[in-house]
């Protein structure tokens, strides 16, 4: 380099994601079309749940180019839902500005990064240079926008805006844009994703039309929906310096005592007093006067004080045993299902709940290994299975023989982790880390459902054994009667019915060598 002067420039969040799109899963054309569908579908499901209406999701992938089927090509992706809709004034920002809005509260969400579909739209724009069309209504009127994102300035640019009347009181959102993708390489994963999504959203109707014109339908079996997630305050254990610094700026509290009780989860006056004494910070001190050193001291004290109550999991939106069972039932039609919802637990100040299920037979295929379905906050995890904590539990921590289960049986295990913060191991967010607290709940959950399967299997086996036993007796006793009659030189065969009846009535046969 001959130029010694280096130029420094601020980059916008949109620019950042443009340059680092690998992080968000847009690594290659196949992965990109899968990630785009997934982001939009999850946004739609969230929107419907917020509105407490059973989701109707329609997905259409159509080919924009007449090129051959193989390899990357331009596709048009359209995703429709019947959710809450986006208020018209927010539509440009919601779909055309990355990291719009700010969060000082936490809530269980599906979206991988809270970026929603914006990353997908951004990706579509940079690969096709075409605008996105968004149609949305919260009820009164229908708004249609054509937008592009000004990447360098991270601002939406509205190309056109139309308003329609809404006689049918339709609400929901339609997103329609073009992107480069490789549908046929991603097809298997996309279909697997839709099927698993249907399992954890048994109250949703999902319809998809692919570029070949094939229709895939996943119909709901129930209208019952889980309660939507509640926003909650951060728990002291999970708080970092940056959070405190931001809270300092926005807080309206005038002393540390009310600062603690207002901004933290499950902190009352008594606990706040004890904590501030432990941290060596005066209860009357004004939050806005905290020095950087005091902030660091405060955060360290937050992590080491043992007087906080564990986080409350009531803010989580669980699937529940009935819905999990219904989802598995409808997609796999197994012979047997057992489900178990664990009691809430917490790691590092984040509440979580593990829901487990096991399915046997029916539509569960035999693969020579136990099939693992992983879910986090009601989205399926499809990649890096072998790195996931559930995989570790299934393959290294459970002695399946104890449950008389062998890998050649048609068995599927389902693990759903719900949390305000899923402990993902990497930025890829495709597998859950082996946090001891989470691992223990998964282990106990799988053990519980495996135990129930084991009972089912042994009961079924004993019924079958009983049937085989009866078959043997009904085959041989008449023959014995016939031969005996001939041997004894009698005319009439003896009646064996009482003997056959006694076999059904009484238990085990006579022992002998």
């Amino acid at each position, binding site marked *: 380099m001959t130029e010694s002067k280096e130029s420094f420039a601020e980059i916008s969040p949109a620019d950042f994601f443009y340059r680092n799109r690998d992080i968000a899963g847009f690594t290659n054309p196949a992965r990109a079309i899968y990630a785009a569908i997934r982001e939009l579908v999850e946004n739609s499901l969230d929107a419907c749940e917020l509105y407490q209406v059973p989701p109707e999701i329609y997905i259409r992938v159509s080919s924009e180019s007449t090129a051959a089927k193989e390899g990357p090509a331009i596709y048009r992706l359209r995703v429709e839902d019947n959710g809450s809709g986006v208020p018209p004034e927010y539509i440009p920002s919601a779909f055309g500005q990355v990291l719009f809005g700010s969060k000082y509260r936490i809530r269980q969400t599906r979206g991988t990064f809270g970026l929603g579909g914006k990353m997908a739209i951004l990706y579509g724009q940079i690969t096709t240079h075409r605008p996105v069309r968004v149609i949305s209504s919260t009820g009164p009127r229908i708004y249609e926008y054509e937008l592009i994102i000004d990447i360098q300035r991270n601002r939406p640019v509205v190309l056109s805006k139309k308003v329609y009347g809404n006689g049918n009181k339709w609400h929901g959102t339609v997103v329609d844009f073009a992107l480069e993708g490789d549908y046929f390489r991603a097809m298997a994963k996309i279909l697997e994703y839709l099927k698993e999504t249907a399992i954890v959203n048994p109250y949703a109707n999902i319809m998809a039309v692919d570029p070949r014109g094939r229709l895939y339908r996943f119909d709901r079996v129930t209208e019952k929906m889980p309660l939507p997630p509640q926003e909650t305050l951060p728990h002291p254990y999970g708080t970092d310096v940056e959070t405190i610094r931001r809270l300092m700026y926005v807080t309206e509290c005038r002393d540390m005592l009310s600062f603690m009780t207002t901004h933290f989860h499950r902190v009352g006056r008594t606990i706040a007093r004890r904590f501030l004494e432990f941290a060596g910070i005066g209860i009357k001190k004004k939050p806005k006067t905290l020095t950087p050193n005091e902030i660091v001291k405060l955060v360290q004290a937050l992590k080491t004080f043992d007087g906080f109550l564990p986080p409350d999991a009531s803010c989580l939106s669980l699937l529940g045993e009935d819905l999990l069972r219904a989802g598995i039932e409808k997609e796999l039609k197994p012979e047997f299902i057992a489900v178990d919802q664990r009691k809430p637990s917490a790691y590092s100040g984040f509440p979580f709940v593990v829901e487990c299920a096991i399915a046997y037979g029916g539509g569960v295929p035999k693969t020579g290994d136990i099939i693992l379905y992983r879910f986090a906050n009601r989205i399926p995890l499809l990649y890096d299975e072998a790195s996931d904590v559930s995989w570790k539990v299934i393959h290294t921590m459970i002695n399946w023989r104890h449950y008389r289960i062998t890998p050649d049986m048609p068995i599927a295990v389902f693990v759903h982790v719900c949390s305000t913060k899923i402990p993902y191991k990497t930025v890829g967010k495709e597998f859950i880390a082996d946090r001891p607290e989470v691992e223990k709940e998964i282990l106990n959950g799988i053990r519980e459902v495996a135990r129930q399967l084991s009972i089912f299997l042994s009961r079924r086996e004993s019924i079958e054994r009983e049937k085989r*036993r009866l078959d*043997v*007796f009904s085959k*041989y*006793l008449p*023959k*014995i*009667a016939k*031969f*005996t*009659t*001939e*041997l*004894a*030189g*009698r005319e009439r065969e*003896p*009646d*064996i019915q*009482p*003997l056959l009846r*006694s076999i059904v009535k009484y238990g085990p*046969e*006579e*022992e*002998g*060598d």
Partner: protein
Amino acid sequence: MTPKKKSATSIKERKNQVINTFQEFGCQLYDQIEKREFPRVEMPSRSIYNIKYDPKIRQYILGNRMVRRSARNIRHIRPFTQLVWVADIVNSLDHMNKTSTLRDVYYMAQAYDMNFKDQQESDGIITDLETIVGYSREDFNVFPEERSAIYGSLTIEYTVPGYEGKRLNLTIHPDGVMIGPALTSAEFVKSEVDKIICIEKGAMFTRFIEEKAWQRFNALLIHSAGQAPRATRHLIRRLNKELGLPVYVLTDGDPWGMHIAMVIISGSANAAHLRELTTPDAKWAGVWATDIVEYKLPSDRLTELDIKRLYELRKDPRYEGELWQREIETFLKIGKKAEQEAFSRYGLSYIVDKYLPTKLEEMESY
């Protein structure tokens, strides 16, 4: 010598006894079912822990341990049904005076949807039936495939259908007469012999006929064809008991030949549930280990298997006698064995002219 008259009816009597026993067995099971009980049967166990040697009757017998086969037991019901089926089928054979073979029974089962896994299984069921009714399968007309032969001046009278009353002198055919069901059930009418020589090998049996050894020794010749079939053992016993003929057994000079003689004398463990197959007074006439030394017979080395067998036999209660122990020790000492044909080095007729006369004389002392 004229046979005792008593035996003339013994064959028919025995037939009737067998038929009655089968019917009793059938009635027993029939009544159990009528009383709403699962049919069952008890019999002495044939496991090796229940086989004992009885020095008084000089054969293996079964002890007191009983086993119970019950149609109530899922593991028993199939073999139990097979047992009743075999009883039924051989009973009707007996009524029609027809015979069958072990292999025949195995194949017949398929027509009744009573398939056996293999012939070993059907043979085992037939052995069960022998144990229960207390008669050997030859008594209920089931014979093995292998046949041995008899030759000599004995006149018999057939009892089988179509041949009743027909008489035959056993010198009728130069190859000897086959010991089959018809001969086994024949009555002895007239005997001009004073001993029986039982020979292991066919070649030697033929040689004895050709050399007219039967005339010189005044002997009835029996070809055992290796281990003597039960029918043959039973016939030897009858000849010994009914006609009072002494029995000499001539075998190869090795542990296996020695044991052929022993089974004729004291029976086998496999037939511990049966009586009247042994001839305790029969004698092993060689080839002995000491003969190999004395006559300098051409010999082969004992194999490892031979030696192992000798060690087994040395501990066997049937081999307690002085002669047996001496011969076993000699075999082990010289490490050699010899076939009957080894005498050929002295000329074809040596065994007939020299060896056997000396031996028979010597046998008087044992």
